[in-house]
Structure formats: structure tokens, C-alpha cells
């Protein structure tokens, strides 16, 4: 179970650290006014500052028990978390597998795994859908519009 407060805190810390990174990084470009007009780092520096200050405000608001927060104390229940993971984890594995397997094989395996393993579809139907997905991607992108999708290290090793 994840409380609304924890989620607010995590998000504020996430945005705040992005802000800090922006501020630090933009200092390299120079801030202020030079012979070439407004320096390149000025705007990112200012937006970075705004992000940091705003995130600090949201952080404090998240910690203090405000009226609006009290009405929804729980943000994600364990069941919801399981459903989220059920969608996101396979998707992340799919993305991670692309450099090795290539887009076509990875997406076919992804479709097959997501449909067949939780038994949403029968194995033959899941197989058919997986094959159709890969084929459709190939025909539309590689053939019709000549956009090359990654073939993967495996295909390269096999000599494709």
C-alpha cells in the first residue's frame, strides 16, 4: 500500500532533483548577459530554480496534513499495485529486450507472453496475434514506409 503522502513526496523529490540537475547543468553554459545577448544558460537556470522552489513547496504541502490530502489518504492499494506491475513490468522487459532480439521478435514474444501466460487467450490465438503483430509492423514500416526498425543483436549474429 502506498499512501498519497508518500506519492506526493516521491514526486516532489523527483521533480526537485530534475530541477537541481537543470540548475547545475545550465551553469556550464553561462548565465546572465554577455556580448552575444542573453547567455544560453540563463533560461534553463531560471526554470531550474522555479522547479526547485516549486518542488520544495509541494514537498512541504505533501508532508503537512492538508484537508484535501486527508480525504484520499491511500493512493494505490495492493491490488492496484499488482495490476500496475502486471502492465509495466512486461512492457519494461519488452523494451529491455529490443537491443538483443530486435523489434519484431521482441514485440511478438511480448504479445504472446502477455496474452498466453495469464490465460487471457488460448495459446494458438495468442501465437496468431503475436505473428500478426510482427508481420504488420514489418509490412507497414519496413516495406511501405521504408522506416527500418531495429533487427537486434541476435539477427546480426545470425547474419541478417
Amino acid at each position, binding site marked *: 500500500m502506498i499512501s498519497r503522502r508518500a*506519492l*506526493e513526496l*516521491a*514526486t516532489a523529490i*523527483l*521533480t526537485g532533483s*530534475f530541477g537541481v*540537475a*537543470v540548475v547545475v*547543468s*545550465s551553469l556550464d*553554459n553561462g548565465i546572465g548577459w554577455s556580448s552575444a*545577448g*542573453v*547567455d*544560453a544558460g540563463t*533560461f*534553463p537556470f531560471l*526554470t*531550474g530554480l*522555479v*522547479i526547485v522552489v*516549486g518542488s520544495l*513547496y*509541494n514537498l512541504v*504541502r505533501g508532508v503537512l496534513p492538508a*484537508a*484535501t490530502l486527508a*480525504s484520499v489518504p491511500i*493512493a*494505490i492499494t495492493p491490488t*492496484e499495485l499488482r*495490476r500496475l506491475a*502486471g*502492465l*509495466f513490468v*512486461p*512492457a519494461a522487459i*519488452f*523494451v529491455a529486450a*529490443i*537491443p538483443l532480439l530486435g*523489434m519484431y521478435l521482441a*514485440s511478438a514474444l*511480448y*504479445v504472446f507472453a*502477455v*496474452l498466453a501466460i*495469464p490465460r*487471457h487467450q488460448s495459446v494458438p490465438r495468442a501465437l496468431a*496475434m503475436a505473428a500478426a*503483430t510482427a508481420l504488420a*509492423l514489418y509490412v*507497414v514500416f519496413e516495406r511501405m*514506409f*521504408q*522506416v*527500418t*526498425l*531495429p533487427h537486434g543483436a541476435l539477427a546480426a549474429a545470425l547474419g541478417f
Partner: protein
Amino acid sequence: MDNLQELLHGFTIAVTVPHLVLMAIGVLLGILVGVLPGLGAPNGVSLLLPLTFGMQPVSAIILLSSMYWGALFGGSVTSILFNIPGEPSSVATTFDGYPMARDGRPTTALATAFGSAAFGALVGVILITFLASWVAQVALAFGPPEYFAVYFLAFASFVGMGGAAPIKTVVALAIGFAIAAIGIDTVSGSVRLTMGIDELVKGVNFVVAVMGLFGIGELLVAVEEEFHARAVSSKIDWGEVFRAVARLPRHGVALLRSAAIGCWMGITPGGPTAASFMSYGIARRFSRRGRYFGTGEVEGIISPETADHAAGTSALLPMLSLGIPGSATAAVMMGGLMIWGLNPGPMLFVDQKDFVWGLIASMYVGNIVAVALVLLTVPVFAALMRIPFVVIAPLIVIICVVGAYSVSNSYLDVVMMLGFGIVGYLFKKLFYPLAPLVLAIVIGDKAEDAFRQSMLMSKGSLGIFFANGLVTSLVIAGIALLLLPLALQLTRPWRKPAPPTAETTSQEKVII
């Protein structure tokens, strides 16, 4: 009257059987590239370009511009059905289009979008027909300060809206600006905010951010609630297509206002994206049902769609009359013009009357062909909503992954897209508004460039934003739009000392 005669002559060129067939082919191909994420009108047009070398210039431009219309229409389909905007300009359509489709009314949403889009395009073409020479002068009067003022106006009309927690809005907006700044700075040429990752030099593409924020983010929000895990049961209903289009005149004010905003933003090179956002923001503020926006309001679809297409159409005008391409697609088409042996620019209207007026006439006919074809496809697209969620979810993930990759053939983009998905989910869950974030990503760097160029011109004096009537009125309108809701919000606590919590939460839900 001269123009009218020329136009009639143009119709005799455009309305011939071979040209009508070319239009149908162009529109269908355009819908295809528009629906497929990652591919867009620029891809389609550049792939077709080699095929046109053997054609008459007029036939060639009819084929290409029909493809452009088709892509504009097709881009709205995925925005409405899956919350994945294929083009920057259809982001604002997702705000009300997607909730409406999810409510079981995908046919209504699609038909409304296409109907109002066709209206916007028509107004744009009429404008081109009658004001070609005047409009060219307005576009020429635009320098960096005016550009900045237009972008400022777009931001002001959208961002000042009440609703979301103000500081969360500010943070979202600032993050958008920072993301827009990543990569090569066009004014100084220096590399910014890459944080040591060389591949980020090319910047963060808008499509990558939007696919994650909207596509994956929405998927995560949807899967969390069991309710959405069911497929939307929508009947294929041809009658509803026509009923939805027939209901459009009831929203005449919204249609006209959005078309006016669209034309204005199209001529002044604010572009279709800024136009659709601005139109949505203004509609939300002035519509009687403004507080229901974001939950599937008809006017929330009409306003961005009409403005988008009005701007997209009138943006072709600077290309023809001045030789300044207003978009990537227009730039590719202009390349085509030169290959066919024509010189875009003011002389085109004098030297190549057949070509120019044939094209303008084909815009009328092409739009009618496009809207007819696209309305016919509505039931087919609406039927996609009946596919069970467990099947559609992995397909949406694949679409987002392939779309993010094909933008610039970069694996890093795919990883970033997934990261944006988590951010989109968190923001949605905690009521950070996504719209200002996306608007800042899309036009943030252009606004910054315009501001810095203005500062160079004026040697650091802000007086340049009040130097002439045009820029002064733009800036003052922007400031007024920005301050109006702030003033209203400030006076609210005195009128209503303790707003009940229930209202705050229902308000929060409406926030995009």
C-alpha cells in the same frame, strides 16, 4: 471579383476524374500515416515525392496536399481512441475526445472532430481565396518580438486557467521549458542540459514525451481501475455519424471563434499546435459548460479541432505567397515545387496562375473528399474500441515503442518514452496538469529563441515589446488573459470563505 473568376477557372482544373482519383488516393494514404504514430505527413509526403516527378505540377501538388489533409484528419483518430496524439497539433483533442470515447461514444467523438475539422479547413481556404495578398503582408510584418508575443499569448490563454494547484502548474510548466531547452541552443549554438549523455544533443522530441505522458501514462491509470479494464461496448452506428455532424451548428459560436483563432495563428506563424491549445483554453474559459471540460465535452473537441485545421490550412499561404514554409510538411512540398520547376514566392501568383488556383480549388474539393472518406471510416475506427483491454494494452505499448523509436531511430528515445510514462502516471495521479507541460515542450524553445533574438535587437530593453501597435496589442492581450483568472482567484476567498472539500476533489478530477 478577380479572385473569384480565377477560382472558378481553378475548379475546372481540379474537378476532373484523374484529379479526383488522385485526391482519394492521397487522402487514404494520408489517413494511414496520420493514424500510425511516428509516421506523419512529412514522412508520407517525402515518400510520395519521387512518384510525382513525372506528373504535371498541378496533379502532383493535388496528390501531396490531399495526403496532408488525410494526415491531419488521421492524427485525431489515435488521440481520441487511445489518448496517443500522433501530431503535436492533436494533443488538445485528447483532453475531451478521449474521455468521450472511453464513455462509450467513440463514434460521436470522431464524427464531431472530423466535422469541426472540415469546417475549420473550409474557413482557412476561404480566407486564402479572398485575402491572399493582404495576408502575405501581415506575415511579413512579423519579427522576433511579434513571434514572442504570439507564443506568449498562447501560453497566457492556456496557463492562466484556474483549477489545478497553482504551484503544481508552475512546476509542470517549468519542467516543460527545461525539457524544451535540452540539446543544441539555436541562438548561441552551444549544447545545453545534456547531462553528459551525447545522444541528447538532438533534444527530446515532442512525440517521445507525448507518447509516454499520454499513451503509457493513461494506460497505467486505466489498468489500475478495474472499470476501464473492460472494453467499451460501442455499436457500429452510421446514424450517429450524421447526427453528430448535424449537431455541430448548435455550437456555432465555438466553431466561428475557433476558426478565427486558427486562421489568426496560421497566418501569424504561431502554427496549428499553438492555435489548438489556445482555442481550447479560451473555449474552456468562455463556454457556459467550461467547468465540465476534460470530461468529454463536445465543445472541448470542436474548439481544438477547428482551430488546428484552420491554422493548418492557412499556414500553406505563407509557403505559396512568400516562399516561407510554415511546417515540415510545407518544407517538403516546397522542395517539390522547385523540383517541378516552379519558384515559390510572390511571382508564383503572377506566373503560374493555373497552378496556384488549381491548388486552391483542390483545397476545397480535397477537403470535401477527405471528410467524406474519413467519415466513412469512423465506424471502422470506433470498432477498435471493442477489442478487449487485455489485447489492446500490449498493442498500445508496441505502438508507443515503435512510434518513439521511428522518430529518430534512437533506442534512447524508447527508454525515455517509458520514463515519461511513469512521470505521466504520477502527474495524473497527483493532479499535476499535463497540458502546460506539453505546451512548454512544444513551443518553449521557439518562445525562448524569439525572446532572446528580440533582446539582441533591442540591446536588452523590454521596450521592444511595446514598439509598435501590433506587438503592443498582442502583449497586452496576453497579460490580460494571464491576470484575469488570477484576479478572479484572488477575490474568491472573500466571497466563499471555506470551499467544501467535495467540490475541490470534483474540481480536481476535471483537471487534465
